[in-house]
């Protein structure tokens, strides 16, 4: 049995996440869709590299933003699931 929590996240095929100089904003480009993620989603998306798991993403954010891990874990997991449901991320 694979441990779901240990599966890393990656961008779904056809999805690009890049900084747009014109708008000075991070943008998710996807098949016939694009959107500007809010600042929380942007910080999460910057950590998606095909290797980091949810735990690794949470650890990184907890350390950098000096926040209690438990406080942000639920938010991050919810946002990762939302990004999967919207076709932005895969695991």
């Amino acid at each position, binding site marked *: 049995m694979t441990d779901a929590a240990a599966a890393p996240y990656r961008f779904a*095929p*056809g999805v*690009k996440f890049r900084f747009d100089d*014109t708008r000075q904003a991070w943008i998710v*480009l996807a*098949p*016939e869709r694009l959107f500007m993620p809010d600042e929380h989603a942007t910080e999460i998306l910057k950590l998606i590299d095909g290797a980091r798991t949810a735990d690794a993403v949470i650890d990184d954010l907890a350390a950098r933003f000096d926040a209690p891990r438990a406080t942000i874990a639920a938010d991050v997991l919810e946002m990762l699931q939302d990004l999967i*449901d919207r*076709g932005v991320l895969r695991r």
Partner: protein
Amino acid sequence: MTASAAALEPPLALLAELTHRCPLQCPYCSNPRALVTRAAELDIATWQRVLTEAAKLGVLQVHFSGGEPTARRDLLDLVRHAAGLGLYTNLITSGVQLDRARLAALADAGLDHIQLSFQDVDDAPGDAIAAYDGAQAKKRAVAALVVAQGLPLTANLVVHRRNLGRLAAMIDMAAGLGAARIEVAHAQYYGWALANRAALLPTRAQLEDADRVVDAARATLKGKVVIDYVTPDYYARRPKACMSGWGRRFINITPEGKALPCHAAETIPGIAFPFVTRESLSTIWQSSAAFARFRGTAWMPEPCRSCDQREVDWGGCRCQALALTGDATRTDPVCTLAPDHTLIEAALADPAREELTFRRFERV
């Protein structure tokens, strides 16, 4: 709110209609009734300049469309040019002229995504509505090649009165072919589709069934396939935010180089649409009278002008207002608050028709 130049945001996307040539003859084609001939098409140097100007202007995505964009032999060079500029490149195609080698070359040129249209799930009605023998089988084969090539695939399922009963099977087919995104698109009633409206417009019962089919498929395919659903606005209470508002997000370039705020805008009389052969894209976006004509809310009549939805739906669709009322400045008749809404009610009450007018070049 006025559409002052200072507040003007850059466009998000460019729809490049490379050609109106197409081997298919779908009677709901979004091209205008008056099609541009091959001799009048822009050359590659002009297209490359337009793409460069688009990227500079802030465009993020370019959709290569048509007609059938693969009918242009220089498509590969255009994709490579756009990808080199950092544009997200999308090919909107019927697929029937694609093969393994061309797909590999397109992927190598930097193509990001392919949208492949399907007219049905069964071969006979699919081929019949496209007026192209073998279209449906070719599309299935091309979908498999696209996926094998590693290119992300959207299956665009065009639906209407005649095939809505097979929507669930169409979605199953698209998911089975490996599409990561499915667009269920009800035909929109402009141009060719408007001429064929009585043969294509679904009944309310059909639409409600389709809504349930899409909901069920979204639940089943959640996390695996994204399903976008374009509804027929004739059954809506409020109009669609056509193109996300006139001159707000999109630029459409016709095969002969006319810049339009939407692909049907040429039907509107009294507007001199600018040509990319004469002006830069930034001048067209920022300064042309055509793009300013219905931008924002200042142009709006009542009931739009004082409506709390005016910056949600932007008054609906100008081309639809024109097509149905003869006046592009009126409120989109789809809105139940529109003075012309009875036109929609009358259309829904029209008796169904069987015969179709197929998309063809019409000699005048």
